[in-house]
């Protein structure tokens, strides 16, 4: 029987980690991730996990130790936010290139500077090309579910790539929500025992991890990473299917919300999806044909699914909670635009940057985006492609 609890996102993920019972967890505090590790450290202190908890002196060393532990043959995790992720950046790439199935919750927070501790997606976006799988969470339940599924996805023999699961800083990490926890033994069976094919601690079969890789092989190794990324979608779907049987909750690469007969839609990720679904419901009640596309898996980018969803629409707005300086829009916008070009799908796409540094987004703002789309459909004129929601003039 699932246990229903009131949990913050940090606590929900800490419970997932308790149930996963990783061999090694490395930790270095950074707001708003801290409470996740506080909670996990309590589980550790109470002997509820067998984990070796390595309390490092920086995020750089936390990721380095996690890489060492994973290469040693352990199931290893860490967690971070914002500048902590930025400090890990070098090793984040190395973790992916070594094909280590590390799972890392990233509690999304704005990157300095100026320093800001609140939510946006600039931290995760900074390493969207690092070779990690990235899965965004809409609410605390999803954060918990994603943490469990990520272990199976990363460790799948066709994948062996690290996964970031993200949850919006403070908005989810510190907000109590109703969360359904699977039974401990159910999770234990679901994630299974970890048996890596190669491990440093298998001393009778010595391996060299992280060698110098020059012009003659580096390129081929990158090709193998690219190939592994192409294998991710079926594994995510397979794991989601297994998870749905246990939990009744089914997840896809994207979620189409009231999209079937929609003419206008918005695309977004993270906690704002919940607010946006409310707006869609309100507008539907008023007879407007609107819908929503939630991107759950951001890397690899589900371009086929998004393209198929967009085909039905007359206009779409992409909401980005991060900036990509010096280009023509936010990172999600750029990705969405790129899926369309040359594929026979041609519709007006506009971009809104919103919520930077934890700026609230409310229903009126999201509704205004739908209103803008209405005008675009009516007039046939796109106007300004890059727009802002909730920005003071």
């Amino acid at each position, binding site marked *: 029987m699932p246990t229903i609890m009131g949990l913050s996102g940090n606590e929900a993920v800490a419970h997932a980690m308790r149930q996963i019972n990783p061999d090694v967890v490395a930790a270095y505090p950074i707001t708003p991730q801290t409470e996740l590790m506080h909670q996990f450290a309590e589980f550790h202190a109470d002997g509820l996990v*067998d984990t070796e908890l390595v309390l*490092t002196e920086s995020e750089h*060393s936390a990721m*380095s130790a996690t*890489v*060492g532990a994973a290469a040693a043959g352990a199931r290893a995790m860490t967690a971070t936010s914002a500048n902590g992720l930025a400090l890990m950046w070098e*090793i984040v790439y190395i973790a992916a290139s070594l094909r280590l199935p590390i799972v890392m919750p990233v509690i999304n927070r704005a990157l300095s500077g100026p320093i800001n501790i609140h939510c946006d997606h600039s931290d995760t976006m900074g390493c969207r090309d690092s070779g990690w799988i990235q899965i965004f969470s809409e609410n605390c339940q999803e954060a918990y579910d994603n943490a469990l599924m990520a272990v199976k996805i990363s460790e799948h023999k066709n994948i062996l790539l690290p996964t970031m699961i993200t949850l919006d800083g403070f908005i989810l990490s510190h907000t109590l929500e109703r969360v359904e926890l699977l039974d401990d033994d159910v999770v234990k069976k679901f994630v299974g025992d970890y048996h890596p094919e190669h491990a440093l*601690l298998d001393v009778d079969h010595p*391996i*060299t991890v992280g060698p110098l890789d020059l012009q003659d092989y580096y390129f081929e190794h990158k090709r193998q990473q690219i190939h592994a990324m192409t294998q991710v979608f079926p594994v995510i779907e397979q794991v989601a299917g297994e998870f749905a049987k246990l939990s009744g909750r089914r997840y896809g690469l994207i979620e189409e919300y009231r999209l079937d007969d929609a003419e206008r839609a918005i695309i977004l990720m993270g906690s704002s999806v919940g607010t946006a679904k409310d707006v869609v419901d309100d507008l539907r009640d008023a007879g407007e044909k609107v819908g929503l596309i939630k991107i759950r898996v951001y890397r690899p980018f589900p371009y086929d699914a998004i393209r198929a969803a967009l085909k039905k629409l007359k206009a779409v707005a992409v909401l980005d909670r991060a900036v990509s300086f010096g280009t023509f829009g936010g990172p999600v916008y750029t990705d969405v635009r790129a899926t369309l070009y040359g594929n026979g799908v041609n519709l007006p796409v506009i971009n809104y940057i919103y919520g930077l540094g934890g700026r609230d987004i409310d229903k009126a703002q999201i509704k205004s985006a739908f209103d803008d789309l209405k005008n675009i459909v009516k007039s046939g004129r796109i106007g300004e492609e890059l727009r802002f929601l909730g920005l003071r003039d």
Partner: protein
Amino acid sequence: MASLKELAAREPKLSPGHRACAGCIPALAFHQVLRSAPGYVVAGCATGCMEVVTTIFPYTAWNIPFIHNAFENSAATISGVEAAYQVLKRKGKVTKDIKFIAFGGDGGTYDIGLQSLSGAMERGHNMLYVCYDNEAYMNTGIQRSSATPFAADTKTAPVGKVHKGKKQYPKKLTEIIIAHDVAYAAQASPSHWRDLNRKVEKALSIEGPAFINVLAPCPPGWRFPSDMGLEMARLAVETCFWPLYEFENGKRKLTYKPKEKLPISEWTKHQGRFRHLHQEENKHLLEQAQQEVDRRWNELLALCGESA
């Protein structure tokens, strides 16, 4: 303590055929450290000469499990490996007794890797960290590090008309590590192989974090003939530039005391990086270098409870 015969009979953990320079003393230092370690060892190394010359894919000179992660995190990486060992041993998934050695050059240890090393020592991982100190960033082309001796000519602190090499004295890294109150810390030199061998054996037999700083002369970096590496290491010890000592149970102990303390010039005169010190107009720099060696040596003698 293993006899020379026993040491020689051990299966080499680092095989021949790596691509180190002719006369490379860092490579010799690795051999000496690894030969001194009986049983199963997992090793890590920071980015640097020795990592580069031993692991060019698809070849490896390592006969034991080896990991290279990045430049500044050899200690943190081996921390993670050792943590994995603790838990997997507890869970019965690993049954062998394994020792852990992290290597780093002076750049990856004194400088960019100091934080990672300090963290690993403070957390008390059961590991040995070995710094192979060739006194500059040799892998990137002989730039000064905080281990580079005073007045040495390097690519980033060159000898010119105005500036005459490195302005500062080397950081006392061994003392910094001792300040962590580690289980064991020592300075060693490949020229005194028996002393080095004993220190590695001791470091690996003691529970907890251990550190050995090994002087590792570099023929191209120091600019001496490639058959003189061990002599350079020996002279560094005999001039008391590189004292051999250890720290155990809260006490420092000299493990070798030169019968006759040689002047620093006996060491510097063989090295191209110090050529300018032997020109008349730079005599004061050589004197300054000697004064600092003397000061540090006397300070160490006092700490070790020895008389001059």
